[in-house]
């Protein structure tokens, strides 16, 4: 029996498990997946919790609902990977060996990387919305908040779902308008990037939306520390921005397992071939989703496109061929913009988000880089697609490689 070991049963690991389970001969392969936690979180839903649109129960399901019945599932923390020995040590003292390893251990926020971030005000007047705890705490806080200075700050790139902070301020504008206190709330979006987003065309269009919605934008702000006395964020060049409530997107890092295994870069992301998704250092190790160091967005849609590519490449490699498929950095993001509307962007390593129609050229139903009700319905529908199609590794009506059809230059 040959052994395939998958580390991490989040979006990427679960999709990959389901895809390969359907391809590999059960008489020849033993598939094992390891995760520390029994609950699957629909992370795109965290964004909606602070505004009371979703509650915790809308974003959780048991992981076991998405595992095929004949797969070995181990719920345990992982101590470390020993890639030279082709084995993985678990915290419960079990040692797992493998012929092939897929690392899908994800990324998470690390607020302690910023001085003062966790000194006292954490989840009191400083919140994150990238964890279930942070999103729920912020939801409770907003319910009774009377207004003041709301600062939303990205600490440093890369972050998971780079559009989520923008969606957050758009939704905040809508939410406080609905509550009738928008006039009492200053919304201030503070980013280390030179514009509202990472890519120029989208950045300028999204910047206009901020302006239209009366959201203040500060660019090229690199936070050095939080001053808890003054309630201000302070940049490395000593610029201060005061807040009453700070919503931070802290430094994102790969899992500590990667650091313990000596397999990561300075942010614990695993050096990965940006086309084949094979580890740059070990031929029988592949890396998927947020765990990679790829210059693509860290997002579920990206993991999904990668999973299609990796399935092909994995089959090639186990059958003795070279990986044939190349990931192009394709990402596809619905950006919730408030008041029942949304914006859609579709891009890859080389092509920045462009206006047009998607997925059918000239038809849509979705509009790229435009604010429409249909785009909002796409986002709402996506949660259903996620649970029922995406995680189960079923075909989605979107190509893995980005298409230029329907896009306007």
């Amino acid at each position, binding site marked *: 029996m040959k052994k395939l070991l998958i580390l991490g049963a989040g979006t990427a690991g679960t999709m990959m498990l389901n895809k390969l389970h359907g391809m590999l001969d059960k008489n020849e392969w033993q598939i094992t997946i390891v995760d520390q936690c029994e609950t699957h979180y629909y992370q795109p839903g965290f964004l909606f919790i602070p505004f009371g649109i979703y509650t915790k129960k809308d974003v959780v399901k048991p992981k076991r609902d998405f595992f095929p019945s004949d797969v070995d599932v181990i719920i345990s923390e992982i101590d470390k990977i020993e890639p030279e020995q082709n084995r993985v040590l678990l915290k419960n003292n079990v040692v797992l060996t493998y012929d092939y390893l897929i690392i899908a251990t994800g990324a998470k926020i690390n607020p302690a990387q910023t001085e003062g971030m966790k000194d006292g005000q954490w989840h009191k007047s400083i919140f994150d919305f990238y964890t279930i705890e942070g999103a729920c705490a912020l939801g409770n806080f907003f319910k009774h908040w009377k207004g003041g200075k709301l600062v939303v700050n990205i600490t*440093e*790139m*890369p972050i998971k779902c780079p559009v989520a902070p923008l969606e957050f301020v758009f939704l905040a504008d809508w939410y406080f308008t609905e509550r009738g206190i928008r006039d009492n709330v200053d919304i201030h979006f503070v980013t*280390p990037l030179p514009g509202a987003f*990472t890519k120029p065309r989208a950045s300028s269009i999204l910047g206009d939306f901020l302006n239209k919605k009366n959201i203040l934008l500060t660019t*090229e702000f*690199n936070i*050095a520390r939080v001053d808890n006395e003054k309630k201000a964020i302070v*940049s*490395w*060049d000593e610029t201060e921005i005061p807040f009453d409530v700070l919503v931070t997107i802290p430094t994102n890092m790969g899992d500590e397992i990667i650091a313990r295994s000596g397999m990561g870069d*300075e*942010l614990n992301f695993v050096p990965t071939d940006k086309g084949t998704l094979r580890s740059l250092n070990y031929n029988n190790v592949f890396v998927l989703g947020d765990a990679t160091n790829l*210059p693509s967005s860290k997002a579920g849609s990206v993991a999904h496109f990668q999973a299609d590519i990796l399935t092909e490449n994995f089959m090639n490699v186990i059958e003795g061929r070279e990986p044939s498929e190349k990931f192009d950095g394709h990402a596809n993001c619905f950006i919730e913009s408030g008041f029942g509307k949304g914006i859609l962007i579709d891009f890859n390593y080389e092509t920045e988000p462009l206006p047009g129609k998607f997925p059918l050229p000239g038809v849509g139903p979705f509009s790229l880089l435009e604010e429409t009700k249909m785009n909002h319905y796409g986002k709402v529908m996506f949660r259903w697609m996620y649970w029922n199609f995406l995680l189960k590794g079923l075909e989605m009506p979107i190509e893995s490689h980005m298409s230029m059809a329907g896009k306007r230059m």
Partner: protein
Amino acid sequence: MTTVATETKTLERDADGHIKNISDWNEQIANALALEEGIPVLTERHWAVINFMRKEFQEKGDAPSIRRLTKESGVETKELYALFPKGPAKKAAKIAGLPKPKGCI
């Protein structure tokens, strides 16, 4: 000064304004690129960072991120921002004649 400024204008640049051909680079061009970034004079400390970046790029094929710089160049984050205001990794890479670091997406 005019001759140097003219020289940088004729250099091929990428979409981010970084020079395309690393072999075009020399110290004079670094001075002119620094001027473009609002840094009038390159001090010894600037050069420590620039030289570190060029060495890293030769060894690893990518300009180092701000984290690598802090960890390994011997220059603290605070000083990096004083030397290269706003974006040390990006600005220092540009002045060093390197492409924009991959981390800056």
